[in-house]
């Protein structure tokens, strides 16, 4: 396995990034952000502001032809646009355009990033326990490098349903299962697009508390989109977007 040998200080970075729809309609306009190790960045803004597109661009989940200008780097590896001379990591394989190959990007994502894209996307016919371990199973990391699934389930309040069939669970429970599944492999970066949208107030409080706790304990970095006011307590920085532009640069939250 190719390993990221030296984790950089800057985990994810977009510079002057512009992204359009396949029809050419601008979604992001000249966006620049930098997420450092240990940051918990909250991205807020109205619907259609470009938050989800920004998150997707940071993990390479945007068609290259939609990126009209700028660049994105994840763990120092170029996903879009020209690479910068600054390098913290050993070079992985590249495409002729100079960006990371799909194979190495996939490897980097499954081994180092936990991703939640607006919906839980679980295996409904599996048990909760099986779902919690799925991401850890496909990662190339050694057994025992991740977190204990039972411990994660306890923190999220789903330890009593571990052997239940996931498809029978409520939307809120599924969302907590999906969050747990992200945490079990102990990723270095969490990318969360509205991970608490289906949770009740108390469940949201518990889930966000567990996320903060785990991130603090294991030094995880996180980028989260949320419309919940309570999510402010989760973040160390907040980024406000509107009409595809960054209105306010990341503001450090008062602790």
């Amino acid at each position, binding site marked *: 396995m190719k390993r990221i040998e030296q984790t950089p200080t800057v985990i994810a970075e977009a510079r002057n990034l512009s992204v359009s729809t396949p029809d050419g309609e601008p979604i992001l306009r000249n966006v620049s952000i930098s997420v450092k190790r240990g940051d918990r960045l909250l991205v807020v803004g109205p619907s259609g502001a470009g938050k*989800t597109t920004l998150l*997707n661009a940071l*993990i390479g*989940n*945007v*068609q290259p032809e*939609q990126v009209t200008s700028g660049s994105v780097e994840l763990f120092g590896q170029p996903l879009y646009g020209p690479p910068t001379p600054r390098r913290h990591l050993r070079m992985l394989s590249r495409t002729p355009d100079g960006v990371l190959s799909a*194979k190495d*990007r*996939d*490897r*980097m*994502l*499954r*081994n180092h*990033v936990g*991703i939640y*894209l*607006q*919906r839980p*996307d*679980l*295996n*409904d*016919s*599996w048990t909760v326990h*099986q779902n919690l*371990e*799925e*991401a*850890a*199973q*496909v*990662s190339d990391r050694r*057994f025992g490098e991740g977190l204990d699934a039972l411990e994660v389930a306890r923190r999220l309040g789903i330890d009593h349903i571990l052997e239940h*069939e996931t*498809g*029978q669970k409520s939307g809120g429970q599924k969302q907590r299962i999906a969050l747990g599944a992200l945490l079990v492999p102990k990723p270095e970066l969490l990318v969360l697009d509205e991970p608490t949208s289906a949770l009740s107030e108390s469940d949201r409080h518990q889930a966000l508390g567990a996320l903060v706790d785990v991130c603090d304990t294991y030094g995880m970095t996180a980028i989260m989109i949320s419309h919940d006011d309570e999510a402010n307590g989760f973040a160390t920085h907040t980024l406000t977007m509107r009409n595809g532009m960054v209105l306010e640069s990341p503001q450090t939250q008062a602790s």
Partner: protein
Amino acid sequence: MEKQAVAESSAAHAAVHRHERRVGTYVGAAMLTAGLASGAAIAALEMSDSNHAVTQEVPYVPEAQHAVNSIDGGLADFGAIAFPLALTTIGAVKVTARFNSKAKWLDQSSSKEPHADGSNKGLGRRALQATLTSRLPAVPIAAAMFGAMTAGIATEVAEGPSRPIYALDQAIPGKTMIVPYADLMPMAQGSLPSEASNKIVKAAAAHNVTARPFDLNLGVMKADGKEPATDLVLGMDLPKTSPAHWNPESDCRTIPVIIDAAAHVKTGSQIELSGFSAVVAGQTENTSAINRVGIIMDRPAVQHCLDRQELGKGTDHAVILDTDPATAHTILQEAHVAGTPAEVISKQQYIDNSKEFWVKNVKPITSVLELIAGGVAVVALVGSITARMERNRRELASRMARGFGVNLLRSAEVLRTAKEGVMASALGGAAAIPATMLVNATEMGFRAGVGVHELLVGAGVAMASVIGSLLPLSKLRKRIDPTRVTR
């Protein structure tokens, strides 16, 4: 200004609606007319009792027949490789899953698809979902069953007509035959003059070789309370002790015969054979072919009664000799039957002539049916796997976006199809046994069965169809683009 724009927009909408209504009326009127016209045409055709079919005579291509007839052999060979390979692969993944987490994920993912739509209380609902989610691969099971059953029918069609020959082989031992022409078989008429047969018998005796002439007669048998059935009468010289020994003095009024048990006619029953009265004097087994009741009769009775020939001056089908072909050639030369067409062949060649006739006659059709079974299964499965990908579109896209890798997702689908193939081969093969029995019940003397070859053909059809169904996976990333589906 604004009012004018609103008015223009309303007028445009109204025009579009008027156009849609007009087109709908025209299409409806055209369909109404076509429906009435086609109904009238069908009624006219029914009344005229005519059956016009589009058909075209095309030249016979032996190579095409050979290629088609080799299909079941190819499928059996493929099944013999693919089935154990699939089983071994599944087993290896399951064993590896104990200590390798990716193998564990592959095993789990290939057993249950991600998408499920809630609880299923009813049996019918559960069965439907099990079929839809490939826990019960209905299409491959049906394909395997149809493949095995068709192979069983093909085997019976090729081998079944030879059963009377094997019975003949037991009744008249000997590996060599003297026949009027080398391509002789039961379905072709043989006419070796009895005078020539008798000379051969005498010449053989000089070499201490037993030569036994025999005759065949194809006719129709009628028994009380039963449908008329076609029969194959084996006429051989029976000893006086045989219950079917014929006394020429009794003439052809009640010919004693031994009948195959497959006809279900009791001993002592009166029957009618090609217009002649006969009595069942005994029972035998394994002489009936497809739709042919095997009947053993004294040779002179066949010649005199059924063939309506003068006693001692009839014709025989062939002569069987218990010697090698070289000695048989010598015997034929010494018999001085010049002018009478006669050739020496092995009994095996006689059997092969029969097999070849039936293989050419029916097997291309059964082979094409096997091919169709596989083809239909592939098409149905491509649809099924495409539907499965559509059902799990979001789940697959999400995993791609999370870096699971297309090859890993493909591997899970390949393993899932291997599991389906193995299950289909086993269940389809098992289902083919009663299905084939049902086919046997539809035709007298038909004895199709399911053996190793047939099971392997079934496995070949199932495995080929599930492998064919992997086609949509080749364009997985194009079909499911995570950048669009996860939005």
